[in-house]
């Protein structure tokens, strides 16, 4: 007995920071799109654990281009689609209290300026004008990129989902992909615990689970989850504009960052050092004391803000810190959008459009360069200057 299977143009695995905007973009291009996610609603994997920073001020042109487009989409979302995603153009500031960081940031600045980014070095006086509450003692200055900003990962991912649904995209939640069938080296169908679906293209947007999805078609995707902890405070009156990033390593953390969201809450996070590999997202006792100390040292005013909630999320890490984007060389129709290394939220909207052009086969010259740089076939040997 045979059942007639639902057939889709594109099946996206993962309804998160990448999957939701990609579904939106694919549907806009007219593709019959299905998104499958093992969680029970949109953005419930790593997306909702993201803190919401969006910047184009990277050092790698591929990421810069993708994020410039994301910035455009985030910043015009409300006027275009009517829903508020808490976009805030507060800028980013990488601060320096030691010469090492000053040097590193200034070197990077040269590259960033060459790539046309709106970013400047501010001396302590100028920086304190932008961030009056910074601890001035030993402050050497910092970068400021006013066009960067933040949005709510909860609201934004949900907004992409809502618009995608309006355009006809289907989302199957609470469904786990168990098999992906190929026929003569080409994607043929996707099989879950609840159904079977035919399609020509599968997009792997499974975040920290991307490696496991790749294994279903024997494609090795070097993505390993690294667990980061974050927390959020009560809401207070607006007093802080940019996202502040301190890249000084310190026992337990290689850097940390925080900003004030549109609800008035401070959201903060560290990059653990050494990395904490694995899928565990259980809160530990180490995070809050470690990060609190670092935050108060650079912004003493934060000592009285009340911490509300803490959590852990997974960064899908790649060996070189850059995402893995592009067609699988071994399985035709298997498109990777993986290993965003904790930047899935800011890359997502730009990446969704790039993937759409890849499927449409309408890639631009810039796209080709981006895809080359993020290719699954690359060597994974160059480390980004500043991740």
């Amino acid at each position, binding site marked *: 007995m045979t059942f007639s299977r639902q057939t889709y143009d594109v099946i996206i695995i993962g309804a998160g920071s990448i999957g939701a905007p990609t579904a939106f973009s694919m549907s806009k291009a007219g593709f019959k799109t299905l998104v499958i996610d093992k*969680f*029970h*609603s*949109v*953005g*419930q994997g790593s997306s*909702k654990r993201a803190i919401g920073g969006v910047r184009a001020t990277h050092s790698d042109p591929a990421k810069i281009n993708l994020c410039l487009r994301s910035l455009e989409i985030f910043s015009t979302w409300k006027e275009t689609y009517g829903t508020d995603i808490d976009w805030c153009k507060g800028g980013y500031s990488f601060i320096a209290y030691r010469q090492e960081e000053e040097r590193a940031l200034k070197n990077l600045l040269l590259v960033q300026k060459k790539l046309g980014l709106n970013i400047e070095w501010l001396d302590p006086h100028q920086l304190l004008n932008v961030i009056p*509450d910074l*601890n001035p003692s030993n402050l050497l200055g910092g970068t400021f990129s006013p066009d960067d900003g933040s949005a709510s990962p*909860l*609201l934004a991912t*949900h907004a992409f989902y809502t618009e995608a649904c309006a355009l006809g995209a289907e989302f199957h*939640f*609470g469904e786990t992909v168990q098999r992906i069938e190929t026929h003569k080296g080409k994607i043929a169908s996707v099989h879950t615990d609840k159904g079977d679906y035919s399609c020509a293209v599968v997009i792997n947007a499974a975040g920290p689970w991307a490696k496991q999805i790749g294994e279903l078609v024997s494609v090795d995707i070097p993505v390993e989850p690294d667990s980061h902890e974050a927390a959020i*405070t*009560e*809401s*207070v*009156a*607006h*007093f802080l504009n940019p996202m502040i990033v301190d890249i000084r390593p310190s026992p337990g953390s290689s850097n940390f960052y925080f900003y004030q969201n549109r*609800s*008035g809450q401070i959201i903060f996070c560290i990059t653990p050092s050494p990395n904490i590999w694995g899928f*565990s997202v*259980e*809160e*530990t*006792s*180490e995070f*809050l*004391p470690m*990060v*609190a*100390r670092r*935050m*108060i*040292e650079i912004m*003493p*005013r*934060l*000592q*009285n*803000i*009340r*911490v*509300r*909630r*803490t*959590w852990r999320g997974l960064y899908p890490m790649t060996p070189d810190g850059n995402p893995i984007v592009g067609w699988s060389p071994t399985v035709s129709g298997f498109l990777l959008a993986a290993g965003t290394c904790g930047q899935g939220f800011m890359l997502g909207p730009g990446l969704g459009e790039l993937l759409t052009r890849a499927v449409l086969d309408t890639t631009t010259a810039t796209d080709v360069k981006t895809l080359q740089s993020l290719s699954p076939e690359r060597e994974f040997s160059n480390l980004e200057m500043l991740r």
Partner: protein
Amino acid sequence: MEDYRIHEHPILSIPTRKKIHFCWKNQQFEALENETISAALIAIGVKVFGHHHKDGSPQGIFCANGQCSQCMVIANGKPLKSCMEKIKEGMDIHPADGLIELPKITSIAALNPIREIDIPVLIIGGGPAGLSAAIELGKLGVEVILVDDKDRLGGKLVFQTHRFFGSTEAVYAGTRGIDIATRLEKDVLQYASVKIWHNSPALAVFSDKKIGISIDGSEYVLVTPQVLLVAAGAREKFLNFKGNTLPGVYGAGAFQTLVNRDLVKPAQKLFIVGGGNVGLIAGYHALQADIGVVGLVEALPECGGYKVHKDKLVRVGVPIYTSHTILSANGDGQVESITIAQVDKNFKPVVGTEKSFACDSVLIAVGLDPVNEFYSKGIQYGIPTFIAGDAEEIAEASAAIFTGKIRGREIAISLGHDTLDIPPAWIRTSEVLKSKPGHISHEGEPEYHEGVMPIIHCNQEIPCNPCSSLCPHGLIFIDSKDIRHIPTFLGDGYCCEACQQCIIGCPGLAITLVDYRKDALNPTISIPYEFSREPIKAKDTITAMDTEGKSFGEFEILSIISHPSNDHTSVVEISAPREIAAKIAGLRVQEKIISEPLDGYIPHIEDDTIVCRCERVMAGEIRELIRAGYRDFNEIKTVTRASMGSCGGKTCTAIIKRIFREERISDADVTDQTKRPLFMEIPLGLFAGIQNEEE
């Protein structure tokens, strides 16, 4: 200046405290030393402490327990939860209107390392269950840290002015809650192996098996216990109705805190929603504090609480409306009236049965939910974790005392005291103490109408036995094998010597004496009495009531007897015709006029039913999402921010789940929300090791 302090109370002693001064909105007022800011504000009649940043709605005290932030004020430039902070001389206090300004810092405080402590047993919660467990462990010399978020041990016992039910031998039945708290506290303090940390809420159970605790708001520490006991009690359920966040609407716990701990009157005229023990007892507490109780609604056809608690209310003149619900709390900026209606079999309000009453407060007592999140985390993270009291199962404090004792013993056994065991009788007692109120039998006429007859107006099976040990001649009998049986008087009219011990010792105040000896046609009736409002004296007239609150008319008081052996229950004697003498069960203390409905009812058109008080999310919004197909609680959170506010979803989670059920979505189809620490909001500085925040 208006004065909303309690200056006289039949049970509680009113301490003399030094007067201090403070400013509220630039005007000077007096406060009492050592009281909370919220108490000082309520004492001068303040009901609105600020306005919400989202919609400008007035914010009044709600939990009185440090969990929400509705009572936030700005004191000396610093935003503080007023229910948790003591007032200080010269404090300059302003309402918290809108988003608060984070105070600026002039100097950088020293950052200290976070202390880590290893201990065999950590107990979270110093209420009846936690204390009993600590005592049991203390007896064996087991090292224990007991943390409690209050400055006094005893949990909710410290608000209970009534005598406790249960078994005299096992759990101090017949003693007032506040006095049980004192006894347990005294008992636990004699064990050197038990360390008590007051004002020290547990904030999180972490996956590395450490528990984060804020000690007295001045130090954050991490405790690694070999065994964790969660005895964190219960939290109140809340209710959806229009106007449900108006200042003046609060839970029973908050009300009891303000009245019986802080000794202030947040209300003059109170309406109670919920006829379980908590609502009934809170009503009685209100009356003792000279607060009028306009009425009580209960949606079920019968009150769920002990009948003797209900009787205490109705016979002093509080009308109870069963099969009724609250439709709305009404008022401009604060509660001015309540509208209620009868409900049909499906608990839907019946049109045309609406009634409104003038009142300034609405007390919600619609049940309790266990505070068991530390337990779930402890188990999840592989810490040997035990649970006791309301955190495990909602029951009376007497049951909590006993399960705490059992858990204490179990923990000791798990730590290697393996010569101990749990006597089967303990298990049996704990089951009996947990039992829900049982069968109600008809209150019959006494057999004899001569001599002296104690009349037992207690006709519901509840676990309670103090009366059986109060009679010096052992004439009141309860089968000691099952103390849930109704007590019976064993004698005829010539056995009782009218010592009145049963009258003043019955926790339900449900025993009267009828003395036929002087005048068989107009016998003397002795009735327990626990009020000090408008002090009564001999020759006054007073209205006698039956168990159901029916009046027998006015009678002259013959005498008022206070027993030196007894704490605060007096006996009022009246004489009445023999036909009604045995039916008289109590005395009206509240005039009828307070409970009269208003002419015509007050409709509440605006749909302002709030589900999430912290983020101001409406019930309508949630319902709309559920109807649109939302089944993941997390998605509702994402879109509305419900449960993401300062209380961490403690109030709205249960309500949202209830809306799902109202929409006929089964629990199995709903994905529960992810629960994350912290249990309570704490300043970032504490985590950085900034100690002693005091200026």
